[in-house]
């Protein structure tokens, strides 16, 4: 009946916050930029009887930009789509060998429920794994963005590779969620 679409954005998230598009972002710098822009744009700062609907729309866009860019994974997804629309869709089909391994890992994570030491070890390993993946995506994307890759084909390949890694990372994230959710029981 309905479908969610990422709405065509009128203005780039980075541009809205006055930043250059980068995969690597200093979180303090991002936060400061967001707060500075909010102070300028927020409807509350426009006086009582100004046309606050325009300010509302713009502040909503700034809030959304910060929400997307703050988290590294949503930021990567955003950059990939900006560079190569449809890249995430095209890389959805993952290598069967990877999927098999991921499923086995997930099962191990579920079994680790009974074994606190094993669970802790697996959580640490999964976090490391995610960190490595994040570093790889970051390197790929920033190389593609900063024009250190001149050849457009190599550039496209780098973005697609980053997109694949993003899909793969989802499995590690889900495993981490399963591991940490058990902790609260």
């Amino acid at each position: 009946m309905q479908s969610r679409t990422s709405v065509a954005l009128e203005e780039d998230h980075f541009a809205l916050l006055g930043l250059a598009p980068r995969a690597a972002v200093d979180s303090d710098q991002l936060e400061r930029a967001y707060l500075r822009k909010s102070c300028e744009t927020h409807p509350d700062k426009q006086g009582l009887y100004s046309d606050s609907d325009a300010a509302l729309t713009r502040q909503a866009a700034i809030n959304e930009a910060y929400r997307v860019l703050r988290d590294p994974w949503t930021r990567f997804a955003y950059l990939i789509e900006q560079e190569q629309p449809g890249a995430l869709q095209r890389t959805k089909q993952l290598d069967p060998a990877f999927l098999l391994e991921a499923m086995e890992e997930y099962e191990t994570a579920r079994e680790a429920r009974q074994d606190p030491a094993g669970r802790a070890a697996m959580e640490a390993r999964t976090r490391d794994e995610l960190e490595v993946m994040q570093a790889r995506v970051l390197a790929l994307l920033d190389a593609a963005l900063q024009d250190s890759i001149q050849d457009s084909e190599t550039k496209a390949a780098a973005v697609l590779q980053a997109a694949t890694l993003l899909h793969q990372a989802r499995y590690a994230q889900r495993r981490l969620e399963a591991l940490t959710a058990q902790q609260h029981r």
Partner: protein
Amino acid sequence: MTSDPILSDETNKIVVLGIDLGTTNSLVAIEDECGGRILGDGLLPSVVAFLEDGTIVVGDAAKALEFELPGRVVHSVKRLIGRSMHELRVEARRLPYSLVEGPSDSVRIRIPAARGAHPSEARDYAPEEISAFVLRACVDRARAELGAALGETPRVVLTVPAYFDEAQRQATKRAAELAGLEVLRLVGEPTAAALAYGVGLDAGASARHVLVYDLGGGTFDVTLLKIQDGIFRVLATHGDTQLGGDDFDRLLLERLLTATGLDRSAAIAPSVLATLRRSAEAVKLRLSDEALGPNEGVTIEVDVAREDATHGAATRGAATSVTITRNDFEAMIQKPLERTLASVRSTLQDGAIAKDDIDAVVLVGGSTRIPRVRAMLTEEFGRPPFTNIDPDRAIALGAARQAAILSGADTETLLLDVVPLSLGIETLGGAFSKLIVRNTTVPCSITEEFSTQVENQSGIEVNIYQGERELVADCRHIGSFQLSGIPPMPAGLPRVAVTFTVDQHGLLRVSARELRSGMTASVEVRPTLGLSEDDVRRMIRESIEKAGEDVVAREALDLRNKATAIIRGTEEALARGGAGLEPEQAYSLKKALARTKRLLDGNDNKALYSAVEELSSYTMQVADDLIGAAVKKALEAPEPQ
């Protein structure tokens, strides 16, 4: 002063009030060049009394009538606002006034017909209307101090519990519209409190994480904020709009009912319930304020016989003495307090902030005076909470601060709030599809595309829900809208983009656009509960017609105060020997005194007026003697509360 309000700099300032519309008490505040201050004298009880002669009184005067007029005095209406009759079934049983079902499962408060009048004279009020009476009383307080500067349509910043959902927020806004106010902003109560603490929390250049724990009369909120460079940003919020001091009163009330054996009565007379409810509250306050050891307690006498006319001789007898120790009380409230602690932990988790990274815990709301609450938070955070602003006043002062931000008087501060509960729509099979997740900073906006399922379908019905569960059946239905006028096309071809926006008030707006034809449509969300625009227009019209009656109501209240004072003064003077009055004088005076006293107990204000006139004419005749002096003194002294 007759300076032109447009030309004068002094009066050209935009006055915006901050109002804390509480479950138990309300307050109105303003922030000007002298800083923030509360207007009026003390807390205004959020209580409305409907006298038999049609007079409506609000505040202390209404609260004082609770025993006299059981079933006609309405309190804690904030717990009803924006909720359905279905949700309130249990709650309704313990209220000393009656609830009836209004249109589409909404709640109405039924004020019975006056004695002797036909039962059909009973009047039903929406919770919004009751809140509007309280809001008007708040504005009256402000007007008494600010006068014409307030303008005809006063502008206000109104606080709501952070965890109030769409329906409860809309209903609160409606109440303000009914009271003739222009709502510039609805702001979360804990956030407002943080603003009131303001500079104290924003000390130094570094960012600070502040957790506000707000346990009021009827609601509980917890809000996590990050404060830096004058920006107060909410990171996460959680709460329970049905948990507060009222619940502790109710637990104590149950205990009193058990102790007096009244719990076995099928129906408890409203007057008894009102008396016991007051006793329960008194016990709670004493247990909170007095330094008591764990096994020390409060003993109260519960006089059941006097009140209980409907239960015959069985419950008649001597007063029952009930003792409740601090330990008893703390055991009673342990479960609800644990629930608040669970909320605190969820909030920290949602905000991704560790317990040790919290720089200050701020307490707001009257119920945080309970020593156990303070002890619990001290244990949880390893340091005592911040309490250097009166927890009753922090919210109103914060609302006034937000008012100053909006009016441009305060340019240093900015508040960034969040959506407290996820908003979404029903999808196939009754699944809840979240569009805006909780703790998203407002304003925020998302666009969703809809299409048709049948060829040439011209309309789509969309149901909006709010909550955190997976199925719409477990969430609150907050409204629906109809997309109509879709051009005839094969199924699935039309593309209707619907934009859901939560504005800075935390209120939902919906707009739609058909992408193929480019046709735009504004969408009116029909609220499941609450008042429609038409209801509001009708009620505002009625309130204008009733404006005269409201004036009468205030005059009646003044009259009663005057009568009470004159009676007190006369009695005092007579007690001192009557200062050598002539026998005829003394006789007339005593007769007029008796008549005034009798009429004060009734509702005939006209007769009371003439009696007061008569009595004061006698006391005037002997103006130079003791009576005149005593009456004069009594009239000048403020009414004891």
